[in-house]
């Protein structure tokens, strides 16, 4: 039995704290956690949820971190105010992570010593309540998780009705499931009401800050964006943390992309035998006039280099999402990073440089989902979308997805009637418009002039095999100019200024949340930074202008080597020494505290 908790004084904190829920992988805590987060969201309070899980299916420690923030801070925090300990293995660590005055909920059958005296303890009679519910054996762990939902609801002041509607959403009308879960929650709530002596200083109170917003994961958003982007062809190979993106396409496409007239599917999905094949199929499909995409992560991307190099060279539109995890090698498959910036940008042998879109929010995952397909066909080149586990697999507040505001862009495809109008010989790689983008035909075109021969070897403007030095050079230079010119049409960076900033800060992707938060903290410490979030490579001239404006610019990234910092340094060699790389990778999303400290350290010097 736990000792009675000594009196602890903590000021009441409303809508600004974090909860760390420690369970065992595979024990089915997802419903419990989603119910909590949805309820808080429904109360109008900004909230985010992060799943910190092992590369395992069942039995290893897993954490779910819920951050509640009236300021709308959604990034990971280092501080934990409330811990829920359901896993004996991590009990002591979970306990130790709490701030003084924190609230410690734990299943009371865990008999680990509790050596801290500065916490509010809350042993939960999990087994008793579960027994009462009498679920089938298989569901026991799952039901146990509902107990902490009930106790937390009591401690935080979440209404049972709110929980109920969250459950109703979850079970989509399966009333029996709603009732059963709710009854366990209610039992736990009641037990807490009747038995708990402590009062949590951390509370939620309704706000209206989530109005009009939704909760979603980046991978779901990317999948939907892709579907709205008119994707015809998806070939993929499972890999964490990309898998849920193709799986979401698989889930949503049958409804959204069945032709209402014919009832036929307007797309094809193939689970390939590996990533080499996945990208090979893409290249075939892209060549044949299909809007083709795949999603993978580091190890898979490594396998895609050779075909990516071919697609770059032969000018074939394909879209590849890289949902990054921690590398090198297999690394930490279930942890987040931004370590593939270089790999993605330069993927393939020889001189290559690709177009890369970098979404920084769930909404942008949707938007770049369709834009990537447009850009690939417009530019006739592979387009990469660089996301990461944190953005892709975690739960984020997002404004609603917006229907694409431009029509589908298919680029310069010639059909029979177009060829009919062309008098001269048509050449696949002729730069007729002076914009470095040639015209293409696709198989199926029945015009006798339409066919040409595609290859990864040297060719002239008419796609004929050539080893001539000048053919090689002119062609490659044109391709370079083509990709280079994309700077003008790729998503512009997002800039946030604060009056009187001397220095700037640059970030990209999922670190946006932590950087914004850090900038607030820094301002409080007297350091004002103007902030630029990159959204694409190669970078726009706006990025260069931005860098030129400041004495010093920090580049924040979640990797070891400061890869984006390198890319920016090369863009502006004369300012290279004023770009300061602040990079860090340990598997966890960057948090504002680390960024703040790192910047302050630099500001001192």
């Amino acid at each position, binding site marked *: 039995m736990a000792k009675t908790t000594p009196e602890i004084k903590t000021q009441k904190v409303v809508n600004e704290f974090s909860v760390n829920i420690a369970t065992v992988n595979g024990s089915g805590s997802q419903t419990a956690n989603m119910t909590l987060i949805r309820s808080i969201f429904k109360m109008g309070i900004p909230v985010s949820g992060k799943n910190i899980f092992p590369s395992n299916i069942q039995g290893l420690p897993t954490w779910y971190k819920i951050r509640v923030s009236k300021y709308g801070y959604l990034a990971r925090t280092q501080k934990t105010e409330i811990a829920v300990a359901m896993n004996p293995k991590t009990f002591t660590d979970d306990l130790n992570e709490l701030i003084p005055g924190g609230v410690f909920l734990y299943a009371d059958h865990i008999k680990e010593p509790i050596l801290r005296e500065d916490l509010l303890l809350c042993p939960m009679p999990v087994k008793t309540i579960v027994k009462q519910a009498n679920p089938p054996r298989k569901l026991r762990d799952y039901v146990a998780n509902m107990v902490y939902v009930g106790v937390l609801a009591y401690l935080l002041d979440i209404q049972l009705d709110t929980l109920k509607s969250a459950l109703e959403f979850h079970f989509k009308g399966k009333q029996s499931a709603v009732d059963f879960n709710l009854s366990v929650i209610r039992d736990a709530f009641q037990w807490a009401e009747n038995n708990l002596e402590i009062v949590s200083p951390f509370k939620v109170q309704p706000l209206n800050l989530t109005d009009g917003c939704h909760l979603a994961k980046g991978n779901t958003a990317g999948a939907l964006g892709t579907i709205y982007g008119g994707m015809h062809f998806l070939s993929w190979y499972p890999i964490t943390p990309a898998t849920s993106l193709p799986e979401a396409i698989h889930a949503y496409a049958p409804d959204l992309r069945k032709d209402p007239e014919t009832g036929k*599917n307007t797309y094809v999905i193939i689970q390939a035998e590996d990533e080499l*094949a996945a*990208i090979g199929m893409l290249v075939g499909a892209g060549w044949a006039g299909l809007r083709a995409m795949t999603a993978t992560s580091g190890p898979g991307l490594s396998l895609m280099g050779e*075909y990516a190099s071919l697609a770059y060279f032969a000018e074939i539109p394909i879209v590849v999402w890289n949902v990054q995890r921690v590398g090198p090698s297999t690394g930490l498959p279930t942890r987040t990073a931004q370590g593939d910036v270089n790999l993605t940008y330069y993927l393939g042998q020889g001189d290559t440089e690709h177009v890369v879109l970098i979404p920084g929010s769930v909404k942008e995952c949707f938007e770049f989902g369709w834009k990537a397909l447009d850009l690939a066909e417009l530019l006739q080149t592979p387009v990469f979308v660089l996301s990461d586990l944190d953005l892709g697999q975690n739960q984020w507040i997002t404004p609603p997805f917006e*229907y694409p505001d431009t029509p589908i862009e298919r680029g310069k495809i010639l059909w029979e009637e177009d060829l009919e109008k062309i008098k001269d010989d048509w050449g696949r790689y002729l730069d007729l418009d002076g914009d470095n983008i040639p015209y293409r035909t696709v198989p199926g075109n029945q015009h006798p002039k339409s066919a040409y021969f595609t290859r990864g070897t040297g060719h002239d403007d008419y796609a004929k095999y050539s080893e001539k030095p000048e053919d090689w050079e002119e062609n490659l230079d044109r391709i370079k100019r083509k990709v280079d010119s994309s700077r003008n049409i790729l998503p512009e960076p997002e800039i946030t200024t604060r009056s009187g900033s001397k220095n700037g800060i640059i970030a990209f992707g999922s670190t946006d949340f932590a950087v914004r938060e850090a900038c607030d903290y820094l301002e409080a410490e007297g350091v004002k930074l103007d902030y630029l979030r990159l959204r694409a490579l190669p970078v726009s001239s706006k990025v260069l202008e931005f860098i030129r404006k400041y004495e010093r610019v920090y580049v924040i990234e979640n990797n070891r080597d400061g890869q984006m910092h390198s890319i920016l340094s090369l863009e502006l060699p004369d300012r290279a020494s004023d770009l300061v790389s602040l990079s860090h990778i340990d598997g966890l999303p960057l948090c504002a505290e680390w960024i703040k400290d790192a910047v302050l350290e630099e500001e001192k010097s």
Partner: protein
Amino acid sequence: MAEKKVKLNELGLTKEDYKGQKSTLCLGCGHNAIVGQVISACFELNIPPEKVFKVSGIGCSSKAPTYFMKRSFGFNGLHGRMPSLATGAAFGDTSMIGIGVSGDGDTASIGMGQFKHITRRNLPFLYIVANNGVYGLTKGQFSATAEKGLALKKQGQNRYVPVDIVWEAIAGRASFVARTFSGDPQQLKALIMAGLHHRGIAVIDVISPCVTFNNQDDSFHSYAWGKSHEVALHKLSFVPPVEAIKVEYEKGESLDVPLFDGTHIILKKLAHDYEPTDRARALQMLEDANRQNELITGLIYINPKQKSLFDLYDLPDTPLNRLPDEKLRPSPESIEEINQLML
């Protein structure tokens, strides 16, 4: 005798219309025979060149598509990875006919994985392996189909047992598997014609000698060996629907394999009494032939009824690559519903 009459096919095309660039393969290379028979087969079958797409990997063999049907779309992809390219390309417009040419290195060494997976998926596609037991383009190393003990300049003796492409195709569940020989143009052509009408993957393993690097008389992949050891399973002819009705073949002497599109393959019995419809029996027959030191050629296995990859997807009649934009993007109304699901 003044004017040479040029033969036209039913499309009004000449054989010239089915040719490609001039071959840059070695004189006498077996692969040139394959090029020639693809041209003849497509010409005789009245296939519009624009209805064909042709793909390959990397190797001398993989250059072959350059040399036939210049009016067809072509793609010379990556070494060992033509199957994935073909799979993606085929879905652009499923009314197109896909022809692939690969090498033994391309298919059985680096390409083994993709080869097995394209056979398993049964993509409607003619997959020709120009099999010479050697890497021609990189100048004469052993490929995975080189027979054990084969001696090649600079390479010494081959240590390993060979991959048998027919075995692999059958194990891999290809629905049409044949073996033939560049030195047997008639059979080669008949098999290509049949393969082009098969709805599913048609793998033709063509023993196609490399005269530059592996044509020693006692080498399995040489002209000399093939010529003296070839045993044709049957006399094979491909019959279009109209003619099929007319053909009279003696019962018991011939086997009629009807294809899904009304065409027929007629197998006239030769020395062997063999029905190419049982996977395990096919392999038994090959084992026996191996023991007899025979180069068995002909149609070794066929299952005209196995569902093809196209049959597994419920696609519109309009080719995917011609679907109008409005068919590709869900309605503006749908976005609201979708947003409501996001919680």
